[in-house]
């Protein structure tokens, strides 16, 4: 076996592992979303399939897999088939740069492997922003290719919404980039090591100075814009059930529909991972070091790191569901006004203030 094929094999193994983690998380998310939504609305959620409805995601998957695949008569067939695949692929490859665990390297087959991040590239944040922007194409193409007025309206709304809020996401991240001085997600996470007040949401300096570099405004802007970017309630205008049937995927059925839904949940997971890495310290515990290190188990410290990352990501995922259970949908003009006249000035002001405080009180 040559070295290049060995490298490919290792990369494929990593990608496979990461993909399966994401898919399993998406499946559990669909279950817990319905459960938590039910609990918050005094209902029970799925109860019939398996104990407490635990097998509901499996049943949904099997049902969607065996459903008839309908392509509308007037649809652009190539585009119609391409759009869900594009959305799904884009949602999946974003996870390549997310560091799930600490930045350790191990040597296997004579090469260095980073087990907890598929690709530690030095422009990780930029990569995620670029990938998320391409994701809008899947929605717009799907809406246009269906040849249906509801789909088209959903796609157009999605285009306007994603572009408006993409800007705020990008600008909210700039403050973090100023603090970390790097675009690599691994290094941004490492810069937040040392405990709760060193996370970029508080922005405490390594010497324990008053957290003057706080990014809490950027954090709020990022989370709100992330909800808008993933087309979730209260920003779910592209798939507004009461107005547009199902929005851009009205005409989709069977596996293509499942692709869109999976992509939506994968996008939620992606922005949760990004928010956890950028603002809440990623895999860093809210105390310096790890407990397993203190009791002399340095080799197993990665378990604690991954556990903290999981806790943070699931906090965001719960927040998404919580918002969905609470808030009604915004009107279109409210959405645009909120994005351009409230979120954008806050994000811009945050950049100016962060830059000034960094100039006068360097880290």
């Amino acid at each position, binding site marked *: 076996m040559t070295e290049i094929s060995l490298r490919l094999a290792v990369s494929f193994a990593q990608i496979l592992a990461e993909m399966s983690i994401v898919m399993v998380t998406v499946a559990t998310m669909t279950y817990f979303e319905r459960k*938590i939504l*039910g*609990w*918050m*609305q*005094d*209902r*029970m959620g799925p*109860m019939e399939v398996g104990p407490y409805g635990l097998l509901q995601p499996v049943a949904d998957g099997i049902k969607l897999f065996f459903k008839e695949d309908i392509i509308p008569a007037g649809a652009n067939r190539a585009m119609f088939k391409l759009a869900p695949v594009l959305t799904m692929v884009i949602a999946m490859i974003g996870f390549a740069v997310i560091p799930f665990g600490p930045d350790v390297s191990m040597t296997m087959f004579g090469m260095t492997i980073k087990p907890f991040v598929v690709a530690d590239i030095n422009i990780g944040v930029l990569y995620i922003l670029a990938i998320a922007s391409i994701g809008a194409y899947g929605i717009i193409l799907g809406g246009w290719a269906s040849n249906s007025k509801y789909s088209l309206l959903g796609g157009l709304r999605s285009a306007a919404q994603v572009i408006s809020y993409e800007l705020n996401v990008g600008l909210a991240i700039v403050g973090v980039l100023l603090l970390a001085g790097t675009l690599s997600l691994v290094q941004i996470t490492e810069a937040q090591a040392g405990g709760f007040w060193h996370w970029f949401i508080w922005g405490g300096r390594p010497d324990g100075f008053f957290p003057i570099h706080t990014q809490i405004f950027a954090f*709020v802007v990022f989370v709100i814009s992330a909800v808008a970017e993933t087309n979730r309630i209260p920003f779910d205008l592209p798939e507004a059930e009461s107005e547009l049937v199902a929005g851009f995927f009205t005409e989709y059925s069977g596996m293509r529909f499942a692709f869109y839904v999976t992509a939506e949940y994968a996008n939620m997971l992606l922005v949760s991972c990004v928010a956890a890495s950028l603002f809440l310290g990623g895999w860093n515990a809210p105390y310096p070091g790890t407990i397993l290190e203190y009791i002399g188990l340095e080799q197993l410290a990665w378990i604690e790191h991954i556990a903290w990352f999981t806790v943070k990501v699931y906090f965001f995922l719960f927040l998404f569901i*919580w*918002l969905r*259970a*609470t*808030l009604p949908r915004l009107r279109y003009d409210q959405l645009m006004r909120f994005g351009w006249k409230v979120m954008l000035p806050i994000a811009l002001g945050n950049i100016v203030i962060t830059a000034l405080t960094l100039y006068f009180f360097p880290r």
Partner: protein
Amino acid sequence: MTFKAWIKTITLYDLLVGMKTTMSHMLHYKPITLQYPHEKRILPDNYRGMLALLRYEDGVEKCVGCDLCEAACPSRVIRVVSAEVPDEPTKRYAKEYYMDMTRCLFCGLCVDACPVDALGMTREFEWSVYDKRQLHLNKEQLLAIGDRSFPVREKQLELQHPNVAFFNVAFKHLPQKPG
């Protein structure tokens, strides 16, 4: 905008109040759902369910074939064919009695109209069928419903309720409201 309102706006106060409400509903989880096929709700005392023909204590049909129920019915559910009782020219009975339950709106007017209390409303409601023709009931089927819904035929005056449109009804074999 006052200062207080401004503070409320920038701290997302209204949003947090709403999220507190949903969270408290989740923490004090008390679902109002009944898992229907597995558990059934307790019906109210004057529940108007499936119609049934009743019998006297000795097993004789109460119906005298007077057609008043047919006249009272607003949806023309009932059709009665009256006839003399053989060998007893002064007595009449319903030779045929049909109910088209696809049209019934369970108003209970036929039960009110009956002068001999031959009609009753049972508590049966699980009458969904695959074939609509199964809801065209004849006299034997209606009597069977009455027999299985009111197995105790003696009068139980303590159970009579002014809102119940029929007497001679025993609820003992049905789930009762607690208290």
